[in-house]
């Protein structure tokens, strides 16, 4: 039996808030009940089937199709199941998520996985800003789980995150790891400026050179054992993290001294490029 598939019929004229698009809610309903679920277009509460063609049978798997850039809050607070999106999604995808998996074959808006505590989000395209971040004023951002973005990401990736992993494939913008308190951010292609600003703890690994803040101090160059362990875990997600001495080493910095914090910044230096070779 095909899983529940919702296909966006027309572009909503203004953003559509659809926190109902989560297996937690939809898997327990009949197809008719799914069609009658509520979504919010601006101030108006409307039926889900005014925007989506509903096919298949509700279950733990949910597939969304179409250009969902205007659709917000998909998978909000989900605890289990799988959402697959064939298209791009709007803001707050998987915010407050606790479990399950979301995969997007397209781009995503801001605030994906904000304040999430478990589960995984994979974006094959680019993501917006505030990936896995804390909402304004909150003490901590992401507290667990994994977010992988194959493409680039916007501002304030992992802002105030406490635990969990974020991997960004292409460059992320300013303030990556802002006020980070724990967890790990892996930047496969580096970031713009102010990476790790005001971080207290946590680890940022970058495979490309970074422009550092003057409040980060160079500690040493080495190949920490935990990177090895980390690389094995990330291999499950088809992310390859170099760790062998033959390939190169990590320049380790600590900071941010302005806090003062004990965060770590690890910047990969391939063997051929460095003086250690």
């Amino acid at each position, binding site marked *: 039996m095909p899983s529940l598939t919702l296909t966006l019929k027309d572009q909503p*004229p203004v953003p559509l808030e659809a926190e109902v698009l989560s297996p937690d809610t939809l898997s327990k309903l009949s197809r008719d009940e799914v069609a009658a679920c509520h979504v919010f277009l601006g*101030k108006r509460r409307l039926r889900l089937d005014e925007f989506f063609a509903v096919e298949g049978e509700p279950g733990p798997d949910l597939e969304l199709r179409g250009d969902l850039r205007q659709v917000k809050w998909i998978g909000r607070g989900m605890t289990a199941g799988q959402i697959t999106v064939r298209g791009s999604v709007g*803001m707050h995808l998987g915010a407050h998520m606790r479990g399950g998996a979301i995969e997007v074959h397209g781009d995503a808006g801001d605030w994906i996985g904000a304040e999430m505590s478990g589960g995984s989000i994979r974006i094959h395209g680019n993501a917006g800003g505030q990936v896995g971040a804390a909402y*304004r004023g909150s003490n901590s951002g992401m507290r667990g789980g994994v977010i992988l973005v194959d493409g680039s990401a916007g501002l304030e990736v992992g802002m105030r995150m406490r635990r969990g992993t974020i991997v960004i494939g292409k460059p992320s913008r*300013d303030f990556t790891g802002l006020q980070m308190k724990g967890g790990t951010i892996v930047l496969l292609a580096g970031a713009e400026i102010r990476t790790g*600003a005001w971080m207290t703890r946590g680890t940022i690994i970058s495979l490309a050179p970074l422009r550092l803040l003057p409040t*980060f101090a*160079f500690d040493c160059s080495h190949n920490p054992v935990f990177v090895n362990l980390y690389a094995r875990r990330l291999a499950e997600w088809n992310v390859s993290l170099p760790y062998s001495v033959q390939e190169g080493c990590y320049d380790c910095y600590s900071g941010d001294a302005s806090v003062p914090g004990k965060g770590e910044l690890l910047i990969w230096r391939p063997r051929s490029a460095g003086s250690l070779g």
Partner: protein
Amino acid sequence: MGGKVTCTLGEVKNRADFIIYWGGNPAECHPRHFTKYSLMPKGKFVPRGRKDRTMVLVDIRETKSVGAADIFLQVKPGKDFEVLTILRALVKNQPINESMVAETGLTLEQLQDLVDRMKRAKFGVMFFGMGLSMTRGKHMNSAAILTLAAELNAFTKFVAMPMRGHGNVTGADVVMRWTTGYPFGINFSRGYPRYNPGEFSTIDLLVRGDCDAALILGADPGATMPQPCIDHLAKIPTICLDPKVTHTSKLARVHITTAVTGISAPGTGYRMDEVPLPLRPALKSPYPTDEEVIRRIHEAVEKKPDWIARNGQTTPAQIF
């Protein structure tokens, strides 16, 4: 984790012996600020006025305000956040990577000297302008200067406050806070206030085209906002309340001429330090006040079927 340590302007007048203006040109943009509040007045504890005060100007270029400063620190454009972060570290005697200081346009000696002076001050104040809060880093630049001021209180009295733009922008901020809990960027579409700058703030809404109507009150976004915002305002039904013809009123579908608040309409203005000032009209206007227009629009809207009741939204389950 941040916050805001501030005071009313009279405290600056009476006590401040160390004044920093950061990212602004008060001599030309806030011409009364020096004379009424900060630099020139003789205050209760700074009886000799200007002679009892030291003024530091931090900016990316030389402006007319430099002439009023005792010390001018010229920062490279876009490096304010770096400078403030270094200062935060120096205040706590933390090490700085010296090789990376030069890119800020300042030397470590200059920065250390500034920190020493800040700590020696009896009462320090930092005023920051849009040269700080609207350049790369934006709200984090403001957070940096506010945090620096807060942390300096471990050593001496120090406060910081933003130099606000024209109009009663502080008043709008104050009233929104008591009615909704949030200062700006508020969305009521789910029947209760929600806040998310970047998502619900005006420029972001307009750039993305997230709204299909606009009511503009006490502002001229047609003159000040980025072109995509202006284009969107021209495309959607825009209603503008303004005493005069403005860029916005010209692109609006409807322009309602209103009385000038403070001249022909009473009210309260909130000064940049949130001190309320009564506005007493000096003249009569043939036009209605903003308040009256909004009230009449509201009364007309109230006669329509209530959308929240129709939506059946009674359970206050916040999604955000």
